[in-house]
C-alpha cells in the first residue's frame, strides 16, 4: 500500500454531557430501531457476563456486531462506573474493549456502528481506531490514552504491543473481539493475532475473547485458535442464514468441447439484461484482468451506463475504491465489476443482484458473495453464475446442492510458523524486554504454538539474537541483546526498522501507475511494467493508458486514444476447486452417469456428457476415469480424480516422477480442476494395476519434494518467510539511500543460507509451506487414498473427449501466444464437433 494517501480520518465525536432523560434500556434501544434482540444475541451477552469466551457465527448483516459488543456494554451499565452523568464521573474510561478487524478500510465504519448504541444506553465510552492509516495526531493522543473501545488490525495491535507501556495500557481490558475471524484463522495473520491475544491474556488475566465468523466447515478449530490455552468457549450459532438462491445464466447453445476463459463474454447480453432488472448489481470476477475486461465490455454494450458502472479491485488506487464504495452505499451505481475486494465488509444495502463470472471455486465463497445482496427485509440473497466454460454449469449445480446440505469449506489451521515467532520475539524484546522462560510459557498458550518443541524455541531465540548457526563466525552480530537473562533491543535504528516491518502480508512487487501530470491510478506487477515499451497502450482501471516511461518504481502514463494493445497481468495464484465443491461435482457426475439430469444446468450440459459417455465414460461414484490416447503430439494419459487443480498438479508430478524412475522418459504435464494429462513422445504401457501402484500414497511427501524442482519452489516461498522473519525489508516509503542499500531479494537470502546454514529452520518452513500451499499436501494424501480405494476405469477413446479437451488447451497455452492459441483451439474444437455430429 505504499504511496497511497491516507484517507481522511473521522475524529472521535467530542464528548458532550448525556441527558439522563435520553437514556434508554437496551431492549428499548433495539425496539426504537424496529429490531428485537435475537435469541443468539441474548445467548452471547449472557455467556459473556458469565465469564465465557466464544465464537459467534452467522451470515453477514444479521447482527453479529451487537451480539459481541453488548456483553461488555451491559456489564459496564451494571457496574455503573461509566454511566454518563453519574455524579463525579470523570471522562471516558481507559481501554475496555478491543475490536480486531482484518480490513483496515472498514475500521471507520465499524467504529461508527460500535459508537451508535453507547450514548443512547447512557455510557460515556469513547470509540477510536488505530490502523496504518491513523494520522500522527491521533497516534500522539493514543500514546497518552487509548479510547475505551479501540478498533484495530492484527498488525497495528502487534505494533501497539511493542511499546514498553503496553502492559499498563492494556491492563484494564475486559474483552477482545476478533471480527471476521474466518478471514484471519488459517493464515499467518491469524497466528500473529493469536500471539497478540496470548500477550493480552498475560496483561489482563480476566480477559474474555470473542470471535465473529461467517459459516466455516470447522468452527471448533477456529474457536480453539481463538481461545488458545483457555481451552473452552461457546460456539453461538447465529441467526438462520437468509434464504439463498443459486442459479446460472444458461448459454443458448452449449459447446461440447469447452475450454476455459472463452465462453464468459459471449453471455454478455444475458448479463446486461440481468443487471438491467435490478437496482444495483455486483459482478464478481475471479481475476483482476477479467474484471477490467468485463467492465470494458459492459460499457461497450451499454454506453448509456457510463458513470453508473464502476470497477473495484485490489490494484486500483484506494481513493478511487472509496469513491466506488460510497457510490454503492448511496445507490448511485448500477453495477460494480469487482474481485474478492468486495467479498468482505459492511453491507451495501442497495445491492439486490449478485453475479459471479466463472467458477466460484468454493461453496463458502459463493455463499459469502450471494450474501452481499438482499439486505432489505423479506428479500432473498441471490447469486447468478455466469459460466466461462460449459463444465462450470456442473459446478453451479454442485454448489447449490452442497450449500443446501451445509457442506461448507473449513480452513486449515497454520501450525507454529517460526517466521512469525521470530518476529514476535523481536517485538517482545522491544516492549521492555523479556525473559526466555516467561515468553516461552506465554507463546505456548497460543494455539498455533501449543506443540512448539524446546529445540524449535531455542533455535528461534538463537536466530533473533546471534543470527543462528550461519553467523557463528561473526560474534559482533546482534539483533536482540541478552543481558542478565533479559532479551532486549537496544539499538534505536533497529527498533524503528522492526516496527515498520511488523506484519505478515507480502505482496508481489508492484509499481505505481500514475499520470504524467496528475494523480495515481493504481498499481501493476513489476514484471508487467518491465515488459512495457514506450507507446504501448493498456487497459487499466477502466481506461486506456499509454505507457511513457518507467522511472523510480512508477509507471508514468498518459490517457491514450485508440484500442489497448496489451493487457496488464497480475500474478496471484489461480484458485483451485475446494474439496467440498469437488466432492459435490463428483456426486453430480455420478447422478448423470446413471442417466438422471435434474435441474437446468445439468440438463444444459447433457449433450456434452452424452458425447463423453459415448466416446469414453462419465465416472460413477467409486470410479476414477483414465483415458489413453495417441495423437500427433504423442502418447497421452488423462486421469480425472475431480479433486481440484492444485491436488492434480501434485498427483501428476508424482505419477510422472515415479514413471520416469522406472524408465527414463520425459513427460509434459497439464492439470485443471477436473484432472491432469501426461504426454510423452514415446509410448508407455500402463494397466490399471500398475497405475494404482504408481499413485500409491506411501512415500508421497518425499517423492513430491523430489519430483518438482522443490528447491526452486521453496525459494519462491521463502520470499514470505524472509519478509516475516525480518530478513527482507518491505519497501519503506521515503526511507532514503540507507534502506536501498539494505535491499536484497529473498532468493539471495535463500541461496546464502543454503550454502552457509542448510539446517536453518526457516528453509525447512519454506519447504513445508510449499507442500501445504502449492500442493495442499493434506488433500493430496486424501486424494491418493481415495484413488487407491477406487476402481480405475481405463478407456481408449478414438479422439480427445470433452473432459480431455480443456487439458489439451491448458498444455498448449504454455507454448503458444494467446492469439494463435485461440485460433488453434477454435479449429480443434470445430473438428471435434463435426465428429460428434457425424455419429
Amino acid at each position, binding site marked *: 500500500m505504499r504511496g497511497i494517501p491516507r484517507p481522511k480520518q473521522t475524529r472521535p465525536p467530542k464528548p458532550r454531557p448525556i441527558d439522563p432523560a435520553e437514556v434508554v434500556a437496551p431492549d428499548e434501544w433495539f425496539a426504537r430501531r424496529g429490531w428485537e434482540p435475537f435469541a443468539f444475541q441474548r445467548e452471547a451477552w449472557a455467556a459473556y457476563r458469565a465469564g465465557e469466551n466464544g465464537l459467534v457465527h452467522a451470515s453477514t448483516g444479521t447482527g453479529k456486531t451487537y451480539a459481541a459488543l453488548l456483553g461488555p456494554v451491559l456489564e459496564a451499565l451494571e457496574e455503573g462506573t461509566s454511566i454518563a452523568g453519574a455524579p463525579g464521573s470523570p471522562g471516558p474510561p481507559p481501554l475496555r474493549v478491543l475490536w480486531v478487524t482484518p480490513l483496515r478500510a472498514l475500521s471507520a465504519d465499524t467504529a461508527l456502528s460500535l459508537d451508535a448504541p453507547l450514548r443512547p444506553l447512557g455510557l460515556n465510552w469513547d470509540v477510536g481506531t488505530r490502523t496504518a492509516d491513523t494520522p500522527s495526531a491521533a497516534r500522539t493522543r493514543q500514546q497518552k490514552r487509548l479510547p475505551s473501545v479501540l478498533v484495530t488490525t492484527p498488525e497495528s495491535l502487534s505494533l501497539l504491543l511493542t511499546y514498553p507501556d503496553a502492559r499498563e495500557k492494556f491492563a484494564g481490558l475486559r474483552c477482545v473481539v476478533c471480527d471476521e475471524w474466518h478471514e484471519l484463522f488459517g493464515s499467518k495473520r491469524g497466528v500473529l493475532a493469536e500471539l497478540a491475544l496470548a500477550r493480552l491474556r498475560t496483561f489482563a488475566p480476566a480477559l474474555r475473547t470473542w470471535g465473529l465468523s461467517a459459516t466455516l466447515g470447522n468452527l471448533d478449530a477456529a474457536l480453539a485458535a481463538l481461545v488458545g490455552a483457555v481451552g473452552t468457549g461457546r460456539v453461538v450459532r447465529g441467526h438462520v442464514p437468509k434464504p439463498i438462491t443459486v442459479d446460472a445464466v444458461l448459454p443458448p447453445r452449449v459447446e461440447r468441447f469447452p475450454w476455459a476463459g472463452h465462453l464468459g463474454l459471449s453471455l454478455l447480453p444475458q448479463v446486461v439484461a440481468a443487471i438491467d432488472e435490478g437496482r444495483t448489481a455486483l459482478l464478481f470476477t475471479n481475476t483482476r484482468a477479467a474484471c477490467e475486461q468485463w467492465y470494458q465490455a459492459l460499457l461497450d454494450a451499454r454506453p448509456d451506463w457510463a458513470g453508473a458502472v464502476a470497477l473495484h479491485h485490489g490494484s486500483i488506487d484506494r481513493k478511487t475504491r472509496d469513491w466506488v464504495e460510497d457510490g454503492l452505499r448511496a445507490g448511485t451505481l448500477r453495477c460494480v465489476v469487482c474481485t474478492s475486494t468486495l467479498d468482505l465488509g459492511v453491507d451495501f444495502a442497495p445491492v439486490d443482484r449478485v453475479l459471479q463470472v466463472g467458477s466460484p471455486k468454493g461453496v463458502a465463497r459463493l455463499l459469502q458473495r450471494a450474501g452481499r445482496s438482499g439486505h432489505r427485509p423479506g428479500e432473498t440473497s441471490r447469486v447468478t453464475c455466469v459460466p466461462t466454460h460449459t463444465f462450470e454449469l456442473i459446478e453451479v449445480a454442485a454448489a447449490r446442492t452442497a450449500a443446501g446440505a451445509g457442506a461448507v469449506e473449513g480452513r486449515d489451521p497454520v501450525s507454529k510458523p517460526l517466521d512469525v515467532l521470530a518476529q514476535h520475539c523481536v517485538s517482545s524484546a522491544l516492549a521492555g524486554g523479556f525473559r526466555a522462560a516467561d515468553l516461552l510459557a506465554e507463546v505456548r498458550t497460543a494455539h498455533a504454538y501449543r506443540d512448539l518443541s524446546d529445540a524449535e524455541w531455542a533455535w528461534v531465540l538463537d*536466530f533473533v539474537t*546471534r*543470527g*543462528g548457526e*550461519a*553467523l557463528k*563466525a*561473526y560474534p*559482533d*552480530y*546482534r*539483533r536482540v541483546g541478552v543481558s542478565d537473562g533479559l532479551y532486549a533491543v537496544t*539499538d534505536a*535504528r*533497529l527498533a524503528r*526498522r522492526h516496527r515498520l516491518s511488523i506484519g505478515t502480508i507480502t505482496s508481489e512487487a508492484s509499481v505505481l501507475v500514475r499520470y504524467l501530470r496528475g494523480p495515481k491510478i493504481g498499481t501493476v506487477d513489476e514484471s508487467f511494467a*518491465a515488459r512495457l515499451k514506450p507507446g504501448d497502450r493498456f487497459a487499466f482501471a477502466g481506461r486506456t493508458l499509454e505507457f511513457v516511461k518507467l522511472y523510480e518504481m512508477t509507471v508514468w502514463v498518459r490517457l491514450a486514444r485508440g484500442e489497448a494493445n496489451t493487457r496488464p497481468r497480475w500474478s496471484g495464484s489461480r484458485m483451485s476447486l475446494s474439496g467440498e465443491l469437488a466432492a459435490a461435482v463428483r456426486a453430480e457426475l455420478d447422478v448423470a452417469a446413471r442417466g438422471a439430469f435434474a435441474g437446468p444446468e445439468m440438463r444444459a450440459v447433457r449433450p456434452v456428457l452424452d458425447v463423453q459417455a459415448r466416446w469414453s465414460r462419465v465416472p460413477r461414484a467409486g470410479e476414477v476415469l483414465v483415458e489413453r490416447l495417441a495423437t500427433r503430439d504423442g502418447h497421452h494419459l488423462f486421469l480425472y480424480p475431480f479433486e481440484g487443480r492444485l491436488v492434480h498438479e501434485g498427483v501428476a508430478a508424482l505419477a510422472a516422477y515415479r514413471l520416469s524412475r522406472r524408465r527414463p522418459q520425459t513427460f509434459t504435464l497439464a492439470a485443471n480442476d477436473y484432472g491432469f494429462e501426461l504426454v510423452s513422445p514415446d509410448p508407455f504401457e500402463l494397466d490399471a494395476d500398475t497405475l494404482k501402484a504408481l499413485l500409491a500414497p506411501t512415500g508421497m511427501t518425499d517423492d513430491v519434494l523430489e519430483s518438482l*524442482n522443490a528447491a*526452486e*519452489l521453496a525459494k*519462491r516461498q521463502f520470499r514470505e518467510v524472509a519478509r516475516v522473519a*525480518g*530478513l527482507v525489508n518491505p519497501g519503506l516509503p521515503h526511507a532514503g539511500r*540507507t534502506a536501498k*542499500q*539494505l535491499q*536484497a*531479494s529473498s*532468493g*539471495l*537470502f535463500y541461496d*546464502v*543460507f543454503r*550454502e*552457509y*546454514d542448510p539446517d536453518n529452520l526457516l528453509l525447512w518452513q519454506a519447504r513445508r509451506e510449499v507442500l501445504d500451499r502449492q500442493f495442499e499436501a493434506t488433500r493430496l494424501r486424501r486424494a491418493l487414498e481415495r484413488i487407491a480405494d477406487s476402481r480405475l476405469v481405463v478407456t481408449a477413446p478414438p479422439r480427445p473427449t470433452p473432459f480431455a479437451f480443456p487439458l489439451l488447451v491448458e498444455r498448449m497455452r*504454455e507454448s503458444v501466444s494467446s492469439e494463435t492459441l485461440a485460433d488453434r483451439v477454435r479449429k480443434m474444437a470445430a473438428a471435434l464437433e463435426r465428429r460428434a455430429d457425424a455419429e
Partner: protein
Amino acid sequence: MTAELEVCGERLVPRPDRSLFWPGPGALLIADPHFGKADAFRAAGVPVPGDSAVPLARLAAALDATAAVRLIVLGDFWHSRDGRTDRVAADLAAWRAARPNLRIELVRGNHDRAGPPPDGWGGWVTEVAEPPFRFAHFPDPSDAGYTLAGHLHPGVVLGRERLRLPCFWFGPRVGVLPAFGDFTGAARVPARRGDRVFAVAGSAMVDLSMR
C-alpha cells in the same frame, strides 16, 4: 562448457566465475563486487552470513587460471559505508599485498561513495579508454569505444520455474558484466535480436544469444 566471443576484432572470454577475460593484453575484468555487502546487512541487524574471503578466493583462482596480469574493476567495488568495516578493509589489503605485481584499475561506481579503495589498491578512475574498448561503470554507449560496463547486475529468467541466473550481455555498442559479488541479485535484461547473452549456470556457461 566455456564460451567466447569476438567484439571489435578482439577475443573475449566470459567465465562462469563471473569475470571476463581479455586475452590480448592479459586483462581480467570484473564488475560490481560490492565488497562488504553482507557486513552492511549485519550492521543493520539482518543476519546474513558471508564475507569477502569467498569472492576474493574466486578472484584469485580466476587470475591464476587465466594468468592475467591486469585486473580491471568496473565499479561498485564497495557496497556501502556501513559495510566498509576494518575487517573487510584488512582482508582486501592483505589480498593485494600477496599480489604486488598485479596491475589494478578501479573504475568508480555509484556505490563507491562509501569511501576510498583499501590500502594498496590505488585510487578511483572515472573510466578507462583502451581502444577498441572503453571501461566504465554505467552501461552508456560512447564514441570513445565499445563500452564494457557493470551496474545493471544483468540476469536471465528461464523456464516455468523462473530460474534466475546472472549473465553477460553484449549489445551492439555496450557489453555488461554480471555482478561479481556473492550476495547480489540479477535483473532481467531486455536483450534484443543479435545480442550475445551468456548465462552463468553453476560452473558452466550457457550461450543464450538471440540470433
